[in-house]
């Protein structure tokens, strides 16, 4: 069954889009990430114009993350205070990211900046997580306790900086500065690379701040809803690239996928969860790295700058 997309101006298979929405929604619900970095390349591969793909998949992220956030609120797995600080810092970071985006484009370095940061982010975050989770497996096999490392007085020094705040839900008493720094960075990277940044927040909260796994997912989804909502509306106003028909199809597939993903995520053991997320990130990073290093079969590409009526 085919349906014509009014903004992308091309027909797509309904079942294929529903399936893609479900698959990405599943991963998104499982790991508490937006999944934009998976959906955008898939849509572009189908022949949907990149601007439309980036703009439209944000609607799906809003939908699936709303479901996750509501679920997290019900399970009391959302740290409002932490979420609010992440969002506030994220907006400032986004503004900086947009400015840097324009500057890099003027300098003609935008493509290089984007691809290199993609590869670096994914491989660095992925391998750090992989290393960590392998160590966890190892400690566990030797009979050690995984939670051993979180003991009083064993926190890194920067967590004890001034402006300390108490986050009851996350069982944290840390300086607000590193958290703001993190959210600033995520907003920056998000605006520059067109990603929600969930895959950075999740490991950062897990490893740097040692927030409990179930709170991490709810809180990161809260941050994602807020930033992606703003991104969606900006895309609609500035680029007029949001395809409502495509968005609804992706959402329908996505909400179902996200439900099953979230349900499965709750039954997943914490180490396995981190291990799987690490593998996913490494795989994506590797894919971009290969694209960068291997000689392309078709070195040429076309982009439409404007349509002349």
């Amino acid at each position, binding site marked *: 069954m*085919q*349906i*014509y997309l*009014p*903004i992308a*101006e*091309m*027909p797509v298979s309904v079942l294929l889009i529903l399936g893609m929405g479900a698959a990405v929604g599943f991963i998104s619900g499982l790991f508490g990430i937006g999944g934009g970095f998976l959906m955008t390349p898939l849509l572009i591969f189908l*022949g949907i114009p990149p601007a439309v793909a980036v703009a439209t998949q944000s*609607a*799906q992220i*809003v*939908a*699936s*993350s*709303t*479901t996750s956030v*509501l*679920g997290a609120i*019900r*399970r009391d797995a959302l740290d409002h205070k932490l979420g609010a600080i992440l969002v506030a810092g994220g907006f400032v970071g986004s503004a900086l990211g947009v400015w840097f985006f324009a500057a890099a484009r003027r300098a003609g370095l935008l*493509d*290089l900046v984007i*691809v290199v940061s993609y590869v670096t982010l994914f491989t660095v975050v992925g391998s750090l997580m992989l290393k960590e989770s392998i160590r966890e497996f190892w400690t566990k096999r030797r009979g050690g306790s995984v939670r051993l490392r979180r003991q009083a007085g064993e926190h890194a020094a920067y967590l004890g900086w001034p402006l300390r705040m108490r986050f009851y839900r996350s069982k944290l008493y840390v300086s607000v500065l590193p958290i703001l720094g993190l959210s600033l960075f995520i907003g920056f990277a998000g605006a520059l690379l067109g990603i929600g940044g969930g895959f950075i927040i999740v490991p950062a909260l897990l490893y740097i701040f040692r927030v409990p796994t179930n709170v991490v997912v709810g809180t990161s989804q809260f941050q994602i809803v807020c930033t992606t*909502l703003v991104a*969606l*509306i*900006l*895309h*609609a*106003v500035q680029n*007029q690239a*949001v395809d*409502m*028909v495509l*968005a*609804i199809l992706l*959402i*329908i597939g996505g*909400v*179902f996928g*996200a*439900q099953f993903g979230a349900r499965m995520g709750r039954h997943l053991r914490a180490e396995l969860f981190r291990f799987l997320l690490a593998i996913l990130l490494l795989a994506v990073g590797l894919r971009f790295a290969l694209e*960068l*290093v*291997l*000689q*392309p079969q*078709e*070195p*040429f*590409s*076309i*982009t*439409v*700058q*404007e*349509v*002349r*009526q």
Partner: protein
Amino acid sequence: MVPESALHFWVRCSSILLVVLASITSASAETLITSLSNHRVLINSNYTGTSIAVFGAIERDAQTVARATGYDVVVTVRGPRQFLVVREKERLGPIWINQEQQKFPQAPAYLSVLTSRSIEEITSVQLRQRQKIGLRAIINSTDFTNERGAGADKQFREALYRLKAQQGLYLEDERGVTFLTADIFRASIPLPATAPPGDYSVEVTLFADTVILASTITHFELVKTDFEEQIGSVARDWSLFYGLATALIAILFGWLASVIFRRD
């Protein structure tokens, strides 16, 4: 907007002029009459591409004798213009990255050339280049893109053709025009689903013995119908409202899912 519509007007005028000229110059010999099966193709929600038939008849006045070589017809279809940039990935240290680029400010989004036999047999290279007959002549014409030294633009023209041909948007078919009798012909213009909405021009040129006898230009329009058009115009003219509406739909679906799947 003003120069574009002026240009459009000029194109229309010149096409009318061409038709008139064609009928004047061929008054003593052949007249070409062409018709399209459809002047307005509607895109609805299950649109998956279409094809448009071109019918043509060649009329000869009483003084003209039948030509020994027979007629040849070239149908050139040009879709709406786009500003395209073709980029080339090149090696920079260990990585491959887009470096050189070439701009095509007036490239048609869709371009097809249908002929009654191979274009090389129909007419000479000089005439093809001068009159832009055939896909290669159009793509290699001097006003298609700016030229570079040592023919460096050549590979970008070729790449544009290759990539567009892969999408079915640029094509040349030397069996595209069929003669039903000696002076009645038909052709079928294949429009893939990815051909964008807009104004399409169909130029039919009549040849005999490598010389142009007559030509006509007609147009057809590819338009979105009610729902598709409305979505498009709301997204364009009411973009903030459209963005908010999409966001609201997304939140609503998200909430709905959390209610449906609620177990506790």
